[in-house]
């Protein structure tokens, strides 16, 4: 059963990668990469159970947090052209 899940995840990751390569705007690419990261987290967890070593889940845990930070950082960079600036907060609302 874990083989079927792994195959489904790999097929979906291929579809997501196609969208990341095709994506007309930069946001389509960011969305595809974020979705790819979520599927990678699930793939790592399922692979741990597939090989009979559920300790792989630690790596999935770390990867889910890194994926989130990466997406937010890239979005902030594309919106404000700066990762360290706090000046946008006054004129934002």
């Amino acid at each position, binding site marked *: 059963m874990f083989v079927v899940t792994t195959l489904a995840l790999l097929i979906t990751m291929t579809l997501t990668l196609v969208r990341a390569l095709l994506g007309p705007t930069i946001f389509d690419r960011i969305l595809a990469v974020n979705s790819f990261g979520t599927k990678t987290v699930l793939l790592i967890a*399922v692979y741990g159970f597939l090989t009979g070593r559920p300790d792989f889940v630690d790596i999935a845990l770390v990867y889910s947090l890194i994926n989130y930070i990466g997406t937010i950082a890239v979005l902030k960079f594309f919106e404000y052209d700066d990762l360290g600036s706090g000046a946008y907060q006054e004129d934002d609302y």
Partner: protein
Amino acid sequence: MFDWLIWIISWLLITTGCVFIVAGGIGLLRMPDLYTRLHAASVTDTGGAIFIVLGLLLQALFVFDNPMAGIKVVLVLFFTLFTSPTASHALAKTALLSGHVPTDENGEPILDSPETAQMLARSRPEK
């Protein structure tokens, strides 16, 4: 008998999660516009992750007899459920802020101009 029941339930949960994930992937590829693609990707991140993690939790607790792995799997679900809607929200708001106008089912823009989209993203609801 009990093992048999656990296998059936975790099979059902994981298969449902696979269906959600593949449907989300196909939607991400075939939807016409950024905001609809965002919707398809969110189905993957919530529905697929919840069902697969619940199935893995049953496996970890009763088949692998490893409660620590079960706790970690639930932590993965916890973080995913917090981070994935936040990332989707940030993505949609950044797209609006940079003047990406949503379209209706005929492909016509529903807002007058990119400036209206930026105003909409900057405004806060009335309290």
